[in-house]
């Protein structure tokens, strides 16, 4: 008899685990997947190109419905199939419409939700997050007829949304509480380069401020009022002030949770039969929002599920790329550094190139590349592998080619 694996969450983390598992232990499990969106598994990162029209929904599908059939994976998807409860005693998962599936092992991959700030007047049409296909479809539809878009949040997702809507012909303003853009990924200088470049494209910025009220007309957003009292016309407000792990289900069934679902190095939750991967987990105090470590979790989890109990997840540095045409940006690790760190910096103002490398004990711990990211993979490896760089320090900034040329 095959073991039963149930996966809650038809997103990138859960399905990556399924993929890995089919590779490593084909036929070991009967697999059932629950997903709340009415789609197959798609690449959420690629929603940005969909927004600005470079790709279609079909283009970004990782697993379409045929895939589930061909691989004998049972898929329950759509709002009715959202999981509402888990009976840990009976090892049974129950969906909104009553669909129920028994498991020997359970994988929770519920991902995260956009953080929707509690701004007065927010419960009107035209206020949305930027998280799933439905959000993107709404944005595309509104962009066709409306004029003013306001983005709250100058992070990666916010800037990608801003750029996408700009491409779709809207006038776009970005409101950000921090004084500089991408403050989780960039330092002041890089952010200034980025802001200049985006401003040149036509995006307006309101930094160091936030939205204190949303005005509406006929139940539809019409304007936003900033904390300094000024008012921006708004036909759409995208909230991209961050994400929070989607842990309500896990909490309800009593799994140990802090900010996320607490997992050990084998991606197991406080219930040995239940695993968790992706943006919903908290591992050694850390949350995850980027694809690389999530895929690594999926790999470890799949190996555990297939019986390789020595496989362990280690947090690795992961990098950021901004998917905005014409903007090359890469950021990894501790790019601000501390007192023990040393900083290397390259600036070409006219070319719009800024690079920063942060060293601690002659190891690269953080990198920002702005305007030229051709060596990003190499830097990422240096950070991951903790390669000592003493011998190449004076050429480090100039990438891998400079090493070959100096030889």
């Amino acid at each position, binding site marked *: 008899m095959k073991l039963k694996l149930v996966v809650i969450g038809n997103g990138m983390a859960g399905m990556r685990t399924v993929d890995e598992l089919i590779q490593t232990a084909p036929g070991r499990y009967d697999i059932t997947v629950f997903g709340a969106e009415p789609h197959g598994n798609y690449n959420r990162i690629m929603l940005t190109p969909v927004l600005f029209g470079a790709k279609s929904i079909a283009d970004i599908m990782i697993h379409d419905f045929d895939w589930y059939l061909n691989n004998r994976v049972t898929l329950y998807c759509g709002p009715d199939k959202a999981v509402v409860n888990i009976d840990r005693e009976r090892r049974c998962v129950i969906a909104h419409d009553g669909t129920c599936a028994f498991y020997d092992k359970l994988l929770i991959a519920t991902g995260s939700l956009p953080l929707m700030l509690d701004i007065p007047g927010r419960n009107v049409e035209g206020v949305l997050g930027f998280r799933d296909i439905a959000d993107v479809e709404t944005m595309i539809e509104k962009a066709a007829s409306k004029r003013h878009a306001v983005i709250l949040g100058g992070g990666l997702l916010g800037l990608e949304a801003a750029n996408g809507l700009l491409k779709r012909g809207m006038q776009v303003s970005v409101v950000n509480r921090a004084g500089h853009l991408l403050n989780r990924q960039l330092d002041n200088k890089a952010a200034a380069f980025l802001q200049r470049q985006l401003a040149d494209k036509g995006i307006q910025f309101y930094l160091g401020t936030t939205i204190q009220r949303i005005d509406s007309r006929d139940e539809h957003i019409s304007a936003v009022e900033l904390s300094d009292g000024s008012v921006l016309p708004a036909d759409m407000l995208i909230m991209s002030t961050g994400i929070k792990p989607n842990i309500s289900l896990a909490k309800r069934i009593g799994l140990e949770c802090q900010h996320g679902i607490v997992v050990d190095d084998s991606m197991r939750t406080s219930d040995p039969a239940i695993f968790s991967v992706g943006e919903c987990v908290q591992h050694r105090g850390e949350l995850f929002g980027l694809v690389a470590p999530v895929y690594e979790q999926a790999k470890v989890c799949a190996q555990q599920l297939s019986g390789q109990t020595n496989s362990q997840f280690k947090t690795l540095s992961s990098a950021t790329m901004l998917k905005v045409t014409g903007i090359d940006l890469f950021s990894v690790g501790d790019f601000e550094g501390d007192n023990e760190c040393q900083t290397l910096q390259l600036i*070409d103002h006219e070319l719009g190139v800024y690079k920063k490398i942060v060293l601690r004990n002659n190891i690269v711990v953080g990198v920002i590349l702005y305007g030229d990211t051709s060596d990003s993979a190499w830097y990422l490896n240096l950070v991951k592998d903790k390669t000592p760089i003493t011998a190449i320090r004076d050429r480090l900034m100039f990438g891998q080619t400079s090493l070959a*040329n100096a030889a």
Partner: protein
Amino acid sequence: MNTIKTTCPYCGVGCGIEATVEDSTTHRVTIKGDSTHPANFGKLCSKGATLGDTVSLENRLLYPSIHGQRVDWDSALNHVAARFNEIIEKHGPEAVAFYVSGQLLTEDYYVANKLMKGFIGTANIDTNSRLCMSSAVVGYKRAFGADTVPCNYEDLELAELILLVGSNAAWCHPIAFQRIRKAKENNPNLKVVVIDPRATASCDIADLHLPVKPGMDALLFNGILAHLQQNGRLDQAYIDDHTEGFAAAVSEAQHSAGSIEQVASACGLSSAAVGTLFDWFAHTEKTVTVYSQGINQSGSGSDKCNAIINCHLATGRIGKPGMGPFSFTGQPNAMGGREVGGLANTLAAHMDLDNPEHVDRVSRFWGSDKIADKQGLKAVAMFDAIAAGQIKAVWIMATNPVVSMPDADKVKHALQQCELVVVSDCIANTDTAQLAHVLLPATGWSEKDGTVTNLERRISRQRPLFPASGAARHDWWIISQVAQRMGFREAFNYASSADVFREHAALSAFENDTEHQLRDFNLSAFARIDQHDFDALQPVQWPVSAGHTAGTARMFADGQYFTANRKARFISITPRPPVNAPNADYPFTLNTGRLRDQWHTMTRTGLAAKLTAHRPEPFVEIHPTDAERLGLAARSLANIQSLWGNMLARVEINPGQQIGSLFVPMHWTGQTSSHGRMGAVVNPVVDPHSGQPESKQTPVHISTWPAQWYATILSRKPLHIEGAEYQVKVRGERYFRYELASTETGKDWRVWARSLLAAEEQHIDDNYWLEYSDQQAGYYRTAYLLDRELQACLFVGPNSELPEPGWLGSLFAKTELSRAERLSLLSGLPPKGETDIGRIVCSCFNVGEKSIKQAVQTQQLQSVADISACLNAGSGCGSCVAELKEFLPKPT
């Protein structure tokens, strides 16, 4: 277009040049070797080949000035004449002096000498040739009774044994060296021996290199003489018939150098090597001994010359094809200077101040009753007399003694407090010109019109390619005009250089016969030469007289010398080590010398970017063992200190250097470097007979110079840099390069760079700049661009490992930098797909180290010929052939 035959102005080889003037207003000229000239048959070295790059108006002195104020010629000439007369009237003729140069043409030289010795009435005229070959003059005169070079270049090709003694001919006389190389290829029996404390590029073709202990050459040649006697290899008939003084000379030789072991031990050589040399010398009839500054620049230089000549006289190997003692002079017209008597201890036309008959003869010829009748002050003594205030007026022509003299800081101070310093030169900014009260603009090489004599006695024409620039005038004209204004109108009434040459030739022929006393130097055939024939003069070896109208290839074929009894004289030589021996405080012996691609104080070669690339900075060569013991890292800066002064130089570790010996190049000046003047270090010891300084052996101390930071700047515009104690300026193609260092701690590089490099104040704005910093490691690099065109870049680092300027320099040729180039710029390395040729090895074809390494590796090149076929390197002047060999795979 107009093709003109002229002569190279650099070393004493005297190569013929065919210059094609492309544009006379912009001084564009194409230079190639004159295939008909007997010195070079069309070949040119890297320096000669790049003459076209040195004839621009850059840094030319174009107008007369007094105390920095531009004046017209009349005012300048009147001023000089009046001031000289005033000082002479008040203090006597001994209170004035001329310091002239082997760069002057014979005509210039003749007039200067005539004015000082004939009309001012003192022999206080000396020349930079004093520093170069005055010992060789003494050697020849003592042996032959006249300053006569017996041999010619053909003898190098006919010889079967060539000794290169104290001569790095490969770099200093490249075309003569190439003739030896070729001769060796054609004649496998030809052996070459290099006798030199250091392994130089000349060792490339050596069958034997004897790294003799510095200064021990005389003992080595005494050893040869003793060996010849002991082994019955003397030409007794020749000794008996044509010489005198043999017994004393050989007895002294036996005493000082009577056995191979004794010689080997004293010279720091192996007995086997000494034995081989002695054996080859004893058994090879056709032997030429080439000697140069390594012999001459010595406290016993004259004796060393005679120790060599003794060996040739004892074997009768002189005056016949393929043999002879052959002095290689340094300068283009050192020989012409000797002919006119430009040295303080000679008169004119190879006559002597010490000989009353000569003095009388010249006095009658010149029609002067004031002629000097005793020797004047030789260079070192002359500047001492200036320092002591005995000489109150000095006129320096076409030379740069503040750089080239020993104890050069003293020379500088002497000129600083001298009452009247007149400098005539073609270059505006020299260390010496800076100290002048009166500056007189002379014509430069490309404008001069007259004759020079090369080191095989061959007189060739230097012909003007362009009209004189600015207000520049020929030196003979300037001197004549001053002479006329001093009251000697008739005697200096020359209208052309042909006028002067004619008089010079007539003097050489004046009473030059057996009835009076026969003299070697005789141009009687030219005593009535007209302008047309002077202009058409073909290269010819003197004497050119009734019996020898086509010139004279070899002297002393008949065994008749110019002594009173027509016999050559052996000189008994007691070998002496250098006067100042290394000691505990100054444990190293400092040797000085030339580089392949530079000439003298770089006022001209320094203008050619191609020539600066080979060795861009002052350096000091040191043996690896010494460097390791003293902790001197390659490329770091070292302080070289003697009792007389100090200099800073880049450390080059070289196993070709002896342990305990150092070598520095002679070329750097206060204009090109802050602390690169080797003259400041060199001891002012002179040979008692020749007065030539001992420039090759100064005891020194060497230590690390504790630089806190190093920097390289490349700038399209010349810069005035403050805040860096160590500075070297190098000419690049379309840029200037500055190598900097300091013992002070670093500064705010960003602020410093922008204030130094920005052409306009608003350019300090970020948008004009690229910046790289690694503050904790001490690195800062920046580049300044205008409209995407590179203007300047600065690289600062905590050590001397800064980028080489090869690829960076090439960016100055571009009007716009690509994105890839900008992104690579501050790494100093080219982006992927572009190549850096590296340090230039072959100046003729601009071939760099990295290109050679790559070609050798990828195309499995096995020989220099392969490299030449592939990259052209080495196929021009051939001076880099020795270096090319180092890139070839080592035989296993």
